[in-house]
């Protein structure tokens, strides 16, 4: 079968500016940091980002000025602070942001994954979330309607089919069969909604390993275009069963993100100033730090 393992730089070269990219991260967990950094190094601009719960991944891309449109359910960097770059960009109106909810983003991905161009939902009604969508540029993506059988009032949502869906997984084989350990949030629907699916894997295993517990395969290989093998690829965000988030680094990031000038500083030092993810990991403390944060097998963190 095909070996789809590729380097992050060659994969990101295939992603055009202006693309709609779906991110699989959640606040400070399983963010595709290695791809985000490369998107910044290659200065892919005018991106549309969709995500259930935004986090460090989206805040970095917005902080780097690469995002023109954000479709999200919400998000922050959890207790470490808000997504300063995203919030600031919204306040300065330099970012077009379409606010949905966790479930409505999940349903939009589900519709995309199922090849349905629309799907009904019973949230959003009687809220300013819906009113703002109807009044804004997203007006064409939502429509109030009634069930043809029960007459019940629904909001119909347009399917989301990202140009590229990115997911960070713990395990993949060279063909792209992927496992996700721990909760999967909307990753399965997000990935399968994508026109192209690119995964970052902490570990590459032989297909025979996948065949030993096929019920663990969440994304089948034939749906995956490329597998990027990058241990600690989500660092400093957490990957369940592999490593914990780096609280110190996240605090430091949030302190930089507070001020536009210092975001630049952070990006210079940790992204543009690094040839690749390995150099970045070295700057963050290298092997020693990674070992400190490596998960214990019982707790998974």
């Amino acid at each position: 079968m095909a070996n789809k393992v590729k380097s992050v730089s060659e994969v990101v070269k295939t992603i055009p500016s202006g693309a709609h990219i779906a991110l699989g991260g959640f606040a400070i967990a399983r963010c595709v940091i290695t791809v985000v950094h490369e998107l910044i190094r290659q200065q892919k601009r005018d991106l549309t980002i969709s995500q259930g719960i935004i986090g460090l991944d989206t805040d970095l891309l917005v902080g780097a000025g690469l995002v023109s449109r954000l479709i999200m359910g919400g998000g922050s960097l959890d207790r470490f602070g808000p997504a300063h770059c995203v919030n600031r960009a919204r306040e300065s109106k330099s970012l077009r942001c379409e606010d949905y909810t966790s479930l409505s983003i999940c349903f939009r991905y589900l519709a995309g994954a199922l090849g349905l161009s629309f799907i009904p939902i019973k949230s959003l009604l009687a809220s300013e979330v819906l009113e703002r969508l109807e009044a804004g540029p997203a007006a064409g993506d939502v429509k109030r309607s009634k069930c043809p059988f029960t007459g019940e009032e629904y909001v119909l949502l347009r399917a989301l089919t990202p140009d590229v869906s990115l997911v960070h997984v713990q395990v993949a084989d060279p063909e792209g069969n992927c496992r996700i350990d721990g909760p999967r949030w909307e990753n399965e629907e997000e990935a399968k909604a994508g026109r192209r699916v690119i995964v970052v894997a902490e570990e590459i295993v032989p297909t025979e390993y996948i065949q030993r517990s096929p019920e663990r395969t969440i994304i089948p290989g034939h749906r995956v275009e490329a597998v990027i093998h990058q241990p600690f690829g989500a660092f400093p965000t957490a990957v369940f069963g592999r490593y914990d988030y780096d609280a110190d680094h996240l605090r430091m990031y949030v302190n930089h993100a507070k001020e536009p000038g210092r975001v630049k500083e952070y990006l210079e030092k940790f992204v543009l100033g690094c040839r690749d993810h390995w150099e970045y990991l070295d700057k963050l403390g290298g092997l020693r730090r990674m070992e400190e944060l490596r998960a214990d097998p019982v707790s998974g963190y």
Partner: protein
Amino acid sequence: MSPTEEMKRNSTVANVRATEIMAAAGARELHDGEVVIVGLGLPEIATVLAKRTHAPGLSALLEVGVMNPIPKDTPVGLGDSRIFYRSTCWSSYLDVMGMNLHRGVVDVGFLGALEVDRYGSINTTLLKQDAGKVRYVNGSAGGNDVASLAKRVIVIMRHEKRKLPMAVAHLTSPGFVGGHSRNELALRGGGPHRVITDMAVLGFDPNTHSACLVSLHPGTRLEEVIENTGFALQIPKEVPATPLPTAEELRLLREEIDPKGVHLK
């Protein structure tokens, strides 16, 4: 917040913190065998307390796809591996929020809030500041979905005038919007049931759908509550006192559930 407020909040009534009264009051709103979707922080603390006391058969769901976790360390958020520990199921948004919440089997939605108005509508999206300036915050996440679909909604928050306005700055998650019934709003969920603050427990009048006082926390004066509420609260003739946490509840909260006082400080 003024130093005196700060003082009051952290001062003790019979050596009980306001946050501990809130957690215990929240726990008492949950019945054994119910299914509850919980947000992190005090809602989760209250849910764990209920499970450890009168509601062992409570099912606690987290929107990310986690059921009945038994964390041994305090998580910083729903994506924190600490909240996945010893769960009975790891699934997905689609399962928890779709096949449970949207399916209609979730009894209680337990949320935090930035602002709650007289009709129980919640704002978690933005703050309006002087000169029409807007400050954005986290947005809905699962809040709107839970508020729309759970059979009853319980909010835990600090009691401040600006956090309990006549109308929220942004209606993120609907309560009894405009005083309308949930039916009139075409919403399936039963809507707001309780707002538990550090001063009192609020409820909603079945007829007017407007917020009313259910009980006053010991050590809080009615005037304080009225002063610190941005709308006219319906006050019953007799205002009962919120029961203090029992000794066992306090022991669980302080020694087992949040020993580091991350959420109960």
